[in-house]
């Protein structure tokens, strides 16, 4: 998390932290495992009142930031979500609200999303190894005054809970995005299984879904840069959340190492373990550093934003996994039981790691970005 918060940011972070401690303690997270939606509507609405859904939305649409850097503010929420393995469709709703607001599209939907009374999901294209090139699995065809959406996207976060789906598709020549009501004829959602107790995913199929042209978001065929922006924001939120989960697991394990005695000594006194804690702290700090740097770069539209975002996703995914798994190892048997809280963070981390590109996919993208830049130079 950021080193230097403004007093307003710190106040907001604390408010969110307090809210999550009260409303989403580990036993509540466990209870929600059996809940279809994975979160309570009232909880989400109250979170929205705190500001969770407003940071990527322009003031004209009822949004607003704390610091002027909306994505950075949102990453504070994401970090606290990670630290508490908190329920709620944070990534999907914010990314869609931001995308609609940027194109001044569907203001009524934006209003619902900001108020926390509506949920939306992004049916994103697949990654290609070439940055800036998207591979949608959906076709968006124009037919008279209508658009016809066909194809399947999987996994889609909160698909079953969303009232609206922002769909990225190819239209022959370019990339087009449309907002599809989840209730539209021809939309079907198959629930998927996941490791996280409260996150929900679905495979969404569009079977010749017909919509009026007004459903299109932005310029038809020219949505590539919008998609890039949505993608980078998704990475920033996932990274911040993953860092929060790592931090929670790490803090818990440091405490454990002082409390747990073996052979008459605390675990924290064994050099073999101390050295691993040193590595873990170093990787946790490095993850904070790269996550923050990437969020700022994305927010500011800096030329190295894509490279930093991929570096963050790749590093946090790779090294964070080692940190969290080593936390399990340090706990011993209790670390792999459902009773202990540690797995809540392992679950959240694992989902965040695997969404929007794995470490390997992002390393390849970084390689391609470096290659491209050195050609241009």
């Amino acid at each position, binding site marked *: 998390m950021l*080193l*230097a918060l403004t007093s307003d940011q710190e106040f907001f972070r604390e408010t969110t932290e307090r809210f999550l401690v009260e409303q989403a303690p580990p036993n509540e997270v466990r209870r929600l495992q059996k809940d279809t939606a994975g979160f309570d509507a009232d909880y989400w609405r109250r979170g929205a009142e705190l500001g969770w859904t407003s940071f990527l939305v322009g003031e004209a649409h009822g949004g607003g930031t704390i610091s002027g850097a909306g994505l950075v503010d949102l990453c504070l929420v994401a970090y606290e979500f990670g630290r508490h393995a908190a329920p709620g469709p944070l990534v999907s709703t914010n990314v869609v609200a931001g995308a609609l607001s940027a194109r001044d599209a569907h203001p009524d939907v934006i209003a619902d999303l900001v108020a926390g009374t509506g949920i939306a999901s992004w049916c994103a294209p697949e990654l290609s*190894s070439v940055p800036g090139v998207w591979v949608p699995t959906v076709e968006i065809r124009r037919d008279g005054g209508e658009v016809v959406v066909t194809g399947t996207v999987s996994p889609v976060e909160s698909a079953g809970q969303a009232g609206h789906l922002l769909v990225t598709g190819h239209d022959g020549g370019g990339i087009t995005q449309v907002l599809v009501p989840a209730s539209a004829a021809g939309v079907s959602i198959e629930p998927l299984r996941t490791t996280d107790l409260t996150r929900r995913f679905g495979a969404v199929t569009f079977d010749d879904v017909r919509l009026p042209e007004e459903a299109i978001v932005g310029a038809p065929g020219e949505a590539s840069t919008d998609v890039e922006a949505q993608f980078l924001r998704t990475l920033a939120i996932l990274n911040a959340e993953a860092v929060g989960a790592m931090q929670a697991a790490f803090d818990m394990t*440091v405490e454990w*190492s*002082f409390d747990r005695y073996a052979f008459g*000594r*605390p675990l*924290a*006194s064994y*050099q073999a373990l*101390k*050295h691993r*804690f*040193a*590595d873990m*702290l*170093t990787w946790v*700090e*490095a993850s*904070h*550093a*790269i996550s*923050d*740097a990437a969020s700022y770069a994305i927010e500011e539209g800096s030329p*190295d934003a894509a*490279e*930093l975002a*991929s*570096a963050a996703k*790749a*590093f946090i995914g790779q090294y964070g996994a080692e940190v969290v798994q080593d936390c399990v190892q340090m706990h011993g048997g209790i670390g792999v039981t459902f009773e202990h809280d540690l797995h809540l963070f392992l679950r959240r981390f694992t989902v965040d790691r695997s969404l929007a590109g794995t470490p*390997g996919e*992002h*390393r*390849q*993208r*970084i*390689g*391609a*970005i*470096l*290659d491209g830049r*050195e050609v241009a*130079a």
Partner: protein
Amino acid sequence: MSAVSTEGAQIPEQLEDLESFRERARSWIGANLRPATADEMRWGRFGGSEEAELASVARDRELQRKLFDGGFAGICFPRAYGGQGLSPGHQKVLNQELVGYEYPARMQVPTLSPCATVLLEFGTEEQKLRHIPAILKGEELWMQFLSEPSGGSDVAGALTTAIRDGEQWVLNGSKVWTTGAWWSDWGLCLARTNWDVPKHRGLSVFMLPIHQSGVEVHRIEMINGSREFCQEFMTDVIVPDSDRVGEVDDGWTVGTRWMFHERMLYSSPYVSVPDGGRQAGTAATRVLGIAREHGRMDDPSVRDLVGEARMLEIVSDELMKRVTESIKSGRLSDQAAAIGRLFKGTTASRISTLALEVAGSAGAAWTDESAASETAVSFLMRQVGSIAGGTLEMARNVISERVLAMPRERTLDRDVPFRDVPRSRPTGS
């Protein structure tokens, strides 16, 4: 210690603003320094002739003098000692403006930091006036007489002995791992002045000219052919008491700050080094060059390896900034510098392995013109970054014990006179 911290706390209003400083630095650099040659960019490549090395040293002294005359030497050193009395922010601007130009590489570490910074913190007024301006003018190159053959990580276990003889001291012992002592002028030396107290309480720090009859400098040949490192043998070297730095037997107070500055390396605000910015020639760019030469960038597994090198480099930069900021703000103790040290060490090691992997069979045999040239030789030296300046194992001890406050390792040398501390395997066992 006060000199440095007061310096950092100067009131900003008194200082030249950063943009006007940048303009001034840019125009002076453009008019006075020439663009760096490819060879200079590759400083650190070993095996050049002795004459070439001495010529480079002479050139570095000239460059340092130029910087001094131009008002750009010792940005964060007080004006009273020939510095500019400016802030770390100004140093950073200068480092950015130096990118792509020649600069006095051999003057920086260890001369300006940690040696000159230790003098600044602990030297007497007379010592500072005598040496810091001379250093900033390029007249004195300093080395650290710190490590000893008997123990690298256990610095406080120094065996080099200083015995008082009236107003002077007589030094005997051996120091090692001094880079380029054969072309340097002064040594900052940690020595034992009392064998009858526990090890940390019997040390003192001295300064001494390297080129004198009691000091014999041997050059050490490394496995990559480098002969940069030296070992010194001191026999009855006379040091006047006025060349003692800090109090008698309180050398560990000096040593602790000394090693703090040492760990800062090129992140120290007391050194001038072209900013290793993202666009500059970097380790990842070299890995990319090797991959391209073999036409392997179309191979996704190779793109992955190149991407990993770049990822580590970017994360390393960001981590260094975070650690520096955290120490400055007090979120983390000074000891957290070990976090940066650990990450840089493991990163350098991994990137060396990545380069060897990408080089394929050119890691076994190559031509001088090849981009993979010396990849394998660098790999032979891979662990240097994990040993020099304190091993990674020591860094891990520091992080776990000083940052995470975990119990210290049990030691057998704490509360006993140093004389009684076991120093080798008992004979006959």
